[in-house]
């Protein structure tokens, strides 16, 4: 069953067309990879999905579980189960990481009509999830993303993903700035969360992340559109031959 359906999405920023008729279907249980050269509109796609101000569609449609996403605010989309792991996670000075995590966790529970966890129960639960991502207590005492290293920031994103248990997760360049060890931890984290009911969309420039998070379908994005889709071999082909051949073939 389709979780996410994007049809002919067109979007411009400052009167410049960025997305030019992009279509994408993501079904339950699938892992998709979207690859493409710089400036092809990958990050714009992620902001558009999350409903960021200024990233409204000119044309086309997006639905999530058959619900039209376009009129919904970022928090409403998040509540439906859409998660975006940021390429550049934002610092929140003075906001303790633990409090922030508890707030978003309980806010999600409340939306789902489930019981919120008490402070103590939450801390226990958090410790367990954090341990799997090699996140130490000390880090959770710091302010959100404040003074975190690149790797810490990305692990913190995946920690939030684990707490919110989304239906679809969009990982925007989650591999950037990670060394091999951190890459493994983050990928394992994502793989552990993957099941038959949810879906992952990995946006990446390089193939190397896909060695750890195995995609079912690989899409090549260029100039605001998906120009080619295939299985995991397509990513390997790009790794070997670069983007130019496919781009040329298209033009």
């Amino acid at each position, binding site marked *: 069953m389709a979780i996410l359906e994007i049809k002919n999405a067109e979007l411009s920023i400052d009167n410049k067309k960025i997305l030019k008729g992009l279509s994408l279907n993501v079904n339950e249980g699938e892992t998709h990879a979207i690859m493409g050269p710089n400036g092809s509109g990958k990050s714009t796609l992620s902001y558009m999905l*999350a409903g*960021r*101000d200024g990233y409204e569609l000119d044309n086309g449609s997006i639905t999530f579980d058959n619900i039209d996403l376009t009129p919904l*605010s*970022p*928090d409403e*989309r*998040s*509540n439906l189960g859409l*998660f*975006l792991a*940021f390429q550049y*996670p*934002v610092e*929140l*000075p*003075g*906001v303790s990481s633990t409090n*922030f995590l508890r*707030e*978003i966790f309980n*806010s*999600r529970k409340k*939306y789902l009509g489930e019981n919120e966890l008490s402070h103590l129960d939450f801390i226990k639960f958090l410790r367990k999830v954090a341990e799997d991502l090699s996140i130490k207590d000390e880090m959770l005492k710091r*302010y959100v993303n404040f003074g975190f290293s690149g790797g810490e920031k990305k692990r913190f994103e995946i920690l*939030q993903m684990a707490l*919110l248990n989304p239906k679809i997760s969009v990982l925007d360049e989650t591999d950037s700035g990670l060394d091999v060890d951190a890459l493994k931890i983050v990928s394992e984290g994502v793989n552990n969360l993957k099941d038959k009911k949810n879906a992952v969309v990995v946006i990446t420039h390089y193939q190397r992340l896909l060695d750890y998070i195995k995609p079912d379908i690989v899409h090549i994005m260029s100039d605001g559109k998906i120009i080619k889709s295939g299985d995991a071999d397509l990513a390997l082909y790009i790794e070997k031959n670069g983007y130019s051949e496919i781009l040329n073939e298209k033009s």
Partner: protein
Amino acid sequence: MVATTETINQVKTTTDKYKYGFSTEIEVDKAPKGLNEDIIRFISQKKDEPKWMLDWRLEAFKKWKRMEKPNWAKVSFPDIDFQDIYYYAAPKAKKKLNSLDEVDPELLKTYEKLGIPLNEQKMLAGVAVDAVFDSVSVATTFREKLSEVGVIFCPISEAIKNHPDLVKKYIGSVVPVTDNYYTALNSAVFTDGSFVYIPNGVKCPMELSTYFRINEKNTGQFERTLIVVEDEGYVSYLEGCTAPQRDENQLHAAVVELVAMNKSQIKYSTVQNWYPGDEQGKGGIYNFVTKRGKCLGENSKISWTQVETGSSITWKYPSCILMGDNSIGEFYSVAITNNAQQADTGTKMIHIGKNTKSTIISKGISAGKSQNTYRGQVQIQKGAYNARNFTQCDSLLIGDTCSAHTVPYINQHVSNAKVEHEATTSKISEDQLFYCMQRGLDAEQATSMIVNGFCKEVMKELPMEFAVEAQKLIGISLEGSVG
């Protein structure tokens, strides 16, 4: 269906906005409107005051008539007609009250609505409360337990009668009658307030707290608080304020004086949530308050912590006079203005003794069309060798129709003193809001979280039970500021 829910929510948030805006139907004893010597005599007589107190008031009134209103603050409002105000309003009591059971149940209900459990059984949390309703102190809890250790905590009107020597010695000793227009007015007409005395070597066993409420229409509240802590004593004092929602502006001109002797410590915390007026700026409290502490003894310490979210106009500078050598003054402030509110607030740190230290942390948050000014003075007088001050003023803007100003004055007369001043102004970034909202927090939750983070350094200075209330208050006062 969706539209109906939306309407209900809309109505709910509108009416929830100032949840202390109800008024209480109570029989009231009122002096006639206006201000003259007879009114002052009336107040003094109502309070059954000794003659010296009446003379002090009349003298203050004489001086007040010759004084000018201050106009240097960055606030604007129509001229106040001081003859159009009631200077005395008291809930009518049939006889003298001996215990809480005799307090008018309507009044107790009001305090219950405000979340102040006056009932001693409910007070096991350990906060002793003095509640001031319009012009009189209604009940002071835990008095007996406190008196066992020698702590005096009572309405100032009682202290004038029962502890005249202490009051005579210290009243006006920190804030002189003629300090400014409103202190002179307060000295003439003050109706009640709290008195605290901590004897030598006593650490007050519980937090002391006063709750102020303006209920009557057209009344001014002029309370006067005096806290004296002897050598090696300690007290933490909390003050909270609310008022009903009314279209007229109401005046609140209080005076607070603190005196700290050798090695003593006073921690004074305020959560001020007077009615701020409506979105257009109609109504609301004029909060013109003079608060000052004197570190008279060596190694003494006074800290002011304030969370100012209410009032249509706030004009307030809790200050420290650091006379004793090695004395310490601290000022931690969060001032939030929304809609048409105006705040001009800050502190004065006057360094007189050697090795005196002061810290100023001020966080101003402006939203709507509001104006928020930090005004502070650091004075290092001759002889204040090795004095140190650190000042940090941060302003946060929400939206682009509000404004923030920082006005620091530094007077330094000693070469080896060190004064540091840091100031920043920032806006809540769209990145931060989007990040929080992507995690499922709505715009208001997200703003409140970011703002609370911004205020962290000040909030952590508040006593625990106050901090929780203050955090919620920040959320409430910023409602509707992001869209």
